[in-house]
């Protein structure tokens, strides 16, 4: 009998012990159970035929429901909560032979860009531990970058997979809205949320997405579209592909080192046959104001369910209303509280039209920007993933300054289009990512560009 899966899981736990445990560890894994994972792996080894991910260990962000390990969303309000059902994405990976080895640390309820908002302490960036790993899926990104696993699940609402992928020097994918089931993903902002994948390579990410993508009867927003073989895109060059360079993503204030890496990446894409064209997405500068109205508004509604009645933390109080207030006040951290208040305000009587309705209208314009560019014959857009490389812990104390980290990524969530971050080089030893954005459900072309970027970088090293 094969011992491939058991050996791979043992290796993952060995690496976890080396880099994650103790006061100087990365703090990327919140919950794990080695004997349970080894038993899972032994069951995979015993199967007569291997799935496409047979024996490959993976980790999942702690806002994705699992039936053995806790699902806390990085929050005290769900400490100790074990879901009674499993997320579809976990089931699909396990059915393909992958073995879950841990749940990863994240900003509380996926609200953050640095992983500093977790109730369980920040995750350190494996590339340089004085820097943030990005967020909110920082634990998943760090787990891949540190070599614990090759693939990891995260979730995206405004860039929470692509931004940490860029900061940690790995590949991160946000699929088209509807491409992947959200069943079992704890809701933050339902019109924006999507499960995403991390990989050490484009091929790893492509394989993981192939497995989890596709219609799920348990999520009415999952699309009934065929899922291509994304790995097949690796064999093609970029002849005939038109790549747009949106000028709004290359402002005069962009870090010159990031600009140089982007120019080099675009040269590499040209060298593989692509045509590069300057384009405009004129409403880009409005994406952050729109995002920080819509996402908190949806969050204020979604997080209303955490009140101490059905699950999680309960702070006893004299009456029901007092119990709600005490539980939620003690259970939620500062950033989640701030966003719930913001969302409640923009939805409240007298302010709804000025904020929420207006944001929905501008969101429509942002989506139209993408549609117009793609309708003009552009197949892909290339941008930096983030304006800078990973920053120091504590460097951004102003909430809005932190929100601006999402400036190049939130647009894809607002428009619902797929996007990928691929490493394009280093600045003073810290990785930087380039982002490729494609038309709705055209992950195939997105991966084609990503494979080309990755190959070009490998050749230049």
């Amino acid at each position, binding site marked *: 009998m094969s011992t491939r899966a058991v050996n791979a899981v043992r290796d993952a736990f060995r690496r976890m012990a080396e880099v994650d445990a103790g006061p100087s560890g990365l703090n990327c894994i919140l919950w794990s159970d080695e004997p349970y994972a080894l038993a899972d792996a032994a069951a995979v080894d015993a199967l007569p035929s291997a799935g496409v991910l047979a024996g490959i260990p993976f980790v999942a962000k702690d806002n994705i429901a699992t039936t053995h390990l806790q699902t806390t969303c990085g929050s005290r309000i769900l400490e100790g909560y074990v879901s009674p059902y499993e997320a579809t994405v976990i089931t699909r990976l396990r059915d393909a032979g992958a073995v879950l080895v841990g749940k990863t640390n994240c900003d509380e309820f996926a609200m953050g860009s640095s992983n500093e908002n977790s109730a369980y302490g920040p995750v350190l960036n494996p590339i340089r531990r004085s820097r943030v790993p990005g967020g909110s899926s920082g634990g998943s990104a760090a787990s891949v970058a540190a070599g614990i696993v090759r693939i990891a699940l995260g979730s995206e609402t405004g860039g929470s997979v692509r931004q940490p992928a860029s900061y940690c020097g790995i590949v991160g994918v946000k699929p088209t809205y509807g491409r992947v089931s959200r069943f079992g993903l704890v809701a933050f902002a339902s019109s924006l949320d999507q499960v995403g994948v991390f990989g050490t390579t484009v091929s790893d990410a492509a394989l993981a997405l192939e497995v989890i993508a596709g219609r799920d009867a348990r999520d009415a927003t999952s699309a009934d579209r065929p899922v291509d073989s994304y790995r097949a895109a690796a064999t093609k060059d970029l002849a005939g592909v038109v790549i747009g360079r949106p000028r709004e993503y290359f402002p005069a204030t962009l870090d010159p080192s990031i600009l140089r890496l982007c120019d080099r990446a675009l040269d590499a894409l040209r060298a593989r046959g692509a045509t590069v064209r300057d384009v405009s997405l004129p409403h880009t500068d409005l994406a952050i104001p729109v995002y920080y109205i819509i996402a908190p508004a949806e969050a204020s509604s979604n997080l209303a369910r955490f009140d101490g009645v059905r699950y999680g933390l309960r702070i006893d109080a004299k009456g029901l209303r007092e119990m709600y207030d005490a539980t939620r006040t003690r259970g939620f951290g500062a950033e989640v509280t*701030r966003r719930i208040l913001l969302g*409640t305000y923009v939805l*409240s009587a007298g302010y709804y039209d000025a904020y929420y309705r207006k944001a929905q209208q501008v969101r429509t314009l942002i989506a139209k920007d993408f549609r117009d560019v793609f309708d003009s014959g552009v197949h892909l857009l290339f941008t930096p993933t983030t304006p800078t490389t990973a920053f120091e812990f504590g460097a951004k104390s102003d909430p809005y300054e932190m929100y601006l980290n999402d400036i190049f990524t939130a647009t894809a969530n607002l428009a619902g289009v797929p996007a990928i971050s691929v490493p394009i080089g280093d600045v003073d030893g810290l990785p930087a990512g380039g982002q490729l954005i494609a038309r709705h459900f055209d992950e195939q072309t997105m991966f084609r560009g990503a494979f080309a970027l990755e190959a070009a970088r490998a050749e230049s090293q």
Partner: protein
Amino acid sequence: MAIGPDDVRHIAALARLAVPESRIPALVSQLNGILSHMDALARVDTSAVTGAAGVGGESMPLRADIGPPIPLEHPLASFAPQLRDGFLLVPRLATHEDSGDDELSE
């Protein structure tokens, strides 16, 4: 549209959050700081734009109003804070005439 301390108290009550008085000034400042950036939206002409709740690649599909069963691996009792005879227990509303300090209602 600047937010004041009473606005924060009001939305905190709507959101079922007991924000301590000591945190109100900081929240007033932070929320006003964030909302000042939202003023940019007012300058965009959206008179001809219909707002969309979502902008996915396709419209929301309809399905029969019966979902597939969700297999539960753990019973409700394993994660509910308090349960009796299959019902969730919560404190009585303070407005109930017969509410007592230690009473729980189903």
